[in-house]
């Protein structure tokens, strides 16, 4: 029962396709963020509305929590001293001059991650070129590596943004520009992959929520990679991910709970951060932390009452996470509705709103 984000789903062969959903087939094309449709799953009968109707679906007093992490250009070209090419995918925020990530073999995202040639195995102490700078390996475990770049902060960030590109997968051959993987409220670049559930939240919708008496609050969660090209590593995803929960958001959640409002998470990264921040004693603690908990269908969320997410089919690991918020049959009926209406499960596709019964 993994807890991954949505990116790699067409990068893998689906597990058991007859697993459910009545064979519901979703489209896989990108959808303009102004044209996203929303499957509402709040009862046994799912409904389909334009995403822009969100303010009418929530109640005054509810609180929507967003992940304001911007997406890094986390895919960087590299070459070893022997001339072997690789791709470094950053898996988390840049920490001073330390970079941590995963190596993929020669080639690019157009080859399915699991079909890429194995990357060169780097040894601790080895020097490699990443983008336009050299870096030294300080830790290596298979294709997971940690490197140090002997560059001052300004130059390192300049080099990474000059050489890097968004992490992509084979189902979308064209190169995504950096702007295509940012939400309309992104701030610090912490995410290795876009927290894509927030993509359809235009400012028209966000200000509409405010006018409807729905409050908005943010946290920052360093959404990591959703695939590594290595099956054993993939099974351990998501890795521990850094988050920061502002005091004002903890206060907003307490106030929402006190007035009987619901806490709606935009994206599974927000669920993970909030549930992690309350893991110790069921009480939310503000500040920075590392989310290690893994959510599965049996998990009973302590903080989050509802979730806005992309669409995921049975057989995808992500589907299991949605089951923490609604029974399987309810989700499957929603997917049938989505398939009938031609909705897209692309990470830049359509969406669902799940409210706990």
């Amino acid at each position, binding site marked *: 029962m993994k807890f991954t984000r949505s990116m790699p789903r067409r990068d893998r062969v689906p597990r058991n396709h007859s697993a459910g959903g009545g064979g519901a087939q979703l489209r896989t094309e990108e959808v303009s963020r102004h044209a996203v449709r929303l499957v509402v799953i709040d009862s046994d009968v799912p409904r389909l509305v334009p995403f822009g109707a969100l303010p009418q679906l929530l109640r005054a007093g509810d609180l929507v929590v967003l992940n304001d992490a911007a997406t*890094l250009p986390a895919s960087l070209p590299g070459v070893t001293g022997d001339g072997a090419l690789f791709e470094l995918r950053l898996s988390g925020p840049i920490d001073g001059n330390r970079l941590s990530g995963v190596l993929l073999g020669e080639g690019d995202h157009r080859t399915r991650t699991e079909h890429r040639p194995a990357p060169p195995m780097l040894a601790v102490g080895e020097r490699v070129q990443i983008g336009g700078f050299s870096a030294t390996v300080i830790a290596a475990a298979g294709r997971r590596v940690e490197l140090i770049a002997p560059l001052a902060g300004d130059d390192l960030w300049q080099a990474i943004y000059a050489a890097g590109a968004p992490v992509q997968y084979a189902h979308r051959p064209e190169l995504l520009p950096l702007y295509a993987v*940012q939400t309309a409220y*992104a*701030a610090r*670049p912490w995410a290795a992959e876009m927290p894509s559930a927030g993509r359809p939240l235009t400012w028209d919708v966000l*200000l509409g929520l*405010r006018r409807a008496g729905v409050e908005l*609050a*943010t946290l920052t969660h360093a959404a990591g990679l959703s695939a590594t090209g290595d099956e054993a590593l993939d099974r351990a995803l998501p890795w521990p991910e850094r988050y920061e929960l502002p005091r004002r958001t903890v206060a907003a959640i307490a106030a929402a709970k006190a007035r009987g409002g619901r806490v709606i998470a935009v994206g599974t990264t927000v669920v993970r951060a909030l549930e992690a921040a309350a893991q110790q004693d069921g009480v939310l603690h503000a500040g920075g932390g590392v989310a290690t908990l893994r959510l599965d269908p049996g998990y009973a969320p302590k903080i989050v009452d509802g979730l806005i997410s992309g669409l995921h089919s049975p057989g995808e690991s992500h589907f299991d996470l949605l089951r923490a918020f609604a029974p399987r049959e309810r989700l499957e009926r929603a997917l049938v509705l989505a398939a009938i209406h031609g909705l897209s499960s692309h990470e830049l596709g359509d969406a669902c709103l799940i409210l706990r019964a």
Partner: protein
Amino acid sequence: MDTNISIQGQGALITGASRGLGRALAEQLATAGARVALVARDAGPLHDVVEGIRARGGIAHAVVGDIGNKDAIHRIAGQAQGLVGEIGIAIHNASTLGPTPLRLLLDTECEDLAAVLETNLVGPFRLTKILAGAMALRGAGVIVHISSDAAVEPYPRWGAYGVSKAAQDHLSRILAAELEGTGVRILSIDPGEMDTVMHAAAIPDADPASLQRPAEVARKIVSMIGNAARAPSGARLAAPQWEVAS
């Protein structure tokens, strides 16, 4: 100082920060305790300014990029927020006159007008689109457009620049109207005539002694940023008329 909004500890981004008013603004915001990301096209002069601020104990970082280049905008914003964190103050100071000596509009190449609009209007618009959203969710932030009296007066030969600044003034007002109630303030500030490289390019025979110093104008602008009561969102303010309370 009549500051009612603290600059201490805020992340600030200033474009065109390697010289003139931009440099002075970066220096004064750093002195006031902001963590400052300085944006400019040329690395050399930019690094000198950054080093100068650091030598005086300030927190400053260099982001090399051209605000008029669409592909550079997300890099600029990403590097800046990677280096100084959340941006609470953004100052759109970089601008271009277009070709000098300044030309009559009928002698202005269409491409030159488009390039001026790209740097002076569309670039700031793109950067605001990236930064203002997070400010609005945090419930606080200040975005400053550096304007000019050429935005108001139809000076012959200042066509491309004047049009870009007039449009930027209106961009400022409409953003302020749309973001009302979010806590984000959008200001348009006419700094007045200053002794800068840009002024010399536009009016080579001006007497520098008759012009304001960038440092004194920057002091007024920092005071405006800190004063939500006297500098409310949507306002167009003139630096020469602004009095810094002591």
